[in-house]
């Protein structure tokens, strides 16, 4: 037991410290060395230019990466060409059987509801955890339809259909007007109900081996 269930090895901590240590051990003999040292400092704690240690794994081609990489940044940089309106989206919603799980008009199905019971006059937090309402960026709605819908036939929707469905869901929640067309330019510009001052995200300054929240004793 004792050998296999080893407690926290110091390895990971050491690896985080290694670049800094390497820098301090660098004798400033030549300008070139200093430049390298400076570069290491600038690159942060985890980056230290070096080759692979084990040589295991293969290099995926650019096409392979493109085919697998479905992530979309908040600014929509990776969005593909295409376009769609809420009206087209309503047709896609019926044609693709979305109502089978989500109900006609986004309510009444067994799957999560897609239309808030409350309109835009209500407080956004009160409108419930409905993706096209509470998503902080409209591209998140596009991303989730694209990666996960429809059930059992994921990846079969065209970009136009995903834009149209996104427009439909945003429209039935009165986030965008019914006649607005969404594409790679307009989708990232959609103003979502939650403005940036109204929500907090998980923090980006979390550090390992520290308390989960400063001054929080629990």
């Amino acid at each position, binding site marked *: 037991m004792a050998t*296999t*269930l*080893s*407690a*926290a090895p110091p390895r*990971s*901590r050491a*690896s*985080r410290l290694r670049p800094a240590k390497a820098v301090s051990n660098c004798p400033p003999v030549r300008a070139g060395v200093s430049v390298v040292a400076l570069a290491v400092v*600038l*690159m*942060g704690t*985890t*980056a230290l*230019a*070096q*080759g*692979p*240690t*084990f040589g*295991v*794994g293969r*290099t*995926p081609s650019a096409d*392979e990466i493109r085919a*697998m990489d*479905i*992530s979309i*940044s908040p600014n929509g940089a990776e969005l593909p060409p295409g376009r769609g309106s809420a009206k087209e989206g309503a047709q896609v919603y019926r044609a693709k059987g979305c109502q089978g799980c989500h109900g006609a008009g986004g309510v009444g199905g*067994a*799957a999560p509801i897609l239309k808030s019971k409350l309109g835009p006059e209500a407080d956004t*937090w009160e409108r419930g*955890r409905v*993706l096209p309402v509470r*998503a902080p960026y409209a591209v*998140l709605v596009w*991303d*989730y339809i694209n*990666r*996960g819908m429809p*059930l*059992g036939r*994921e990846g079969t929707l065209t970009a136009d259909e995903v834009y149209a469905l996104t427009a439909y869901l945003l429209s039935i929640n009165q986030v965008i007007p019914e006649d607005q067309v969404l594409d790679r330019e307009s989708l990232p510009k959609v103003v979502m109900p939650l403005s940036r001052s*109204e*929500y*907090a*995200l*998980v*923090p*980006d300054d*979390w*550090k*390992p*081996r520290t*308390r*989960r*929240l400063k001054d*929080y*004793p*629990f």
Partner: protein
Amino acid sequence: MAAKRPARREFLKNTAALASGLAVGAVAPAAAQGPAPAASPASSSPPMLKDTAELIRYGDRSKYVTSMRIPHGGRPTPDTFGLTFHVATPLQDSVGVVTPSSLHYYATTRGSFLPDIDPGKHTLMIHGLVDRPLTFTMDDLKRLPSVTRLHFIECAGNRSSPRAKNVQESHGMTSCAEWTGVLLSTLLKECGLKGSAKWFVAEGAEEVKGASSMPIVKAMDDCIMAYGMNGEAVRPQNGFPLRLMVPGFEGIFHTKWVRRIKVVDQYMINYNDFGHLDQDAKEAALGYQIGPKSVITYPSGSQRLPGRGFYEISGLAWSGGGVIRKVEVSTDAGKSWKVAEFKGTPQRMAHTRFGLPWTWDGKETVIMSRCTDELGSVQPSRVQIAEHFHKPADPSFSVPGLDNSIQPWHIASDGSVTNGYNS
């Protein structure tokens, strides 16, 4: 540590007394039966189990052991679509710290099917802000230096309520297993992280391709790409053939069926991260790391003490902050606390079994446990958390982040144990 020793000695003494008492008790009824009609009872045998070739290949537990997982919150699972939701582990029956794989809690991303993945075709691609994108087969991963560590996983929704009748309902969405795999830092170093790397996205291969964003410093600290669980391959319900372990973070981050890691320079919010949006920055900050938490599993809700006398109180403690340093148990509704004994050596972000010898006087009482982790964080009561957030500790108060509040169990004078949530 020194404080534990007297407790242990007392415990050993008590168990010895108990054992001799049992031996006497076992002999007495046999002697009272008078002359045996045929063979002596001592040479009689229980019925035999018929072993089968199948059971020889892969064993099963006794039919007398009936401990089962249950759907969390009474929600039907699988549902009418065949989707799986949250399933809770029977902590009330647990011994030691390892949850058997068949009883390990699990949940799927917003309800999804379990993918049936051929490991021979499964790959993990790492790309984004790296010098060398790499694709690993399962065979590739098994060539690399491995680690084997005990870690718990706990669902963010694992919170007690007055409705929970037993510890499975109140705390069953945490489990602990021995995980084997390659440190994510090993893989990322093989790819070479670029200096702008700040976050990474882990993505599963299931139909909704559940993805989560996490800080790259966590990846470099202790995340594991795990292919092994409790001495065999990870089970499909827990991510076969490959799952990401993010020790101490809420369960949803432990991406199952993981197929892709993208290293990025900003928080790439995914559907799975959407639940971590919060109105309050402090509450949002509690969305990663799990605080110190413990619960008594025996005696616990729905169990019944047969009478006054000796019992070893037993329970589990864990924390996302690292190793559990201390567990205290109160048998008088929190008026006084005694330091419990660890069963085995506590591990980082792992369930830690504790015990406290206790002689019940047969009177109504409330028992509870609290723990302290290596960062000095202490498991709080609901009232303490509410006070911290300047809110009344009424039933509407919901503990921010994962609920790590103290769980009281009420023991009535007839020995019946119930949820002491409101007491």
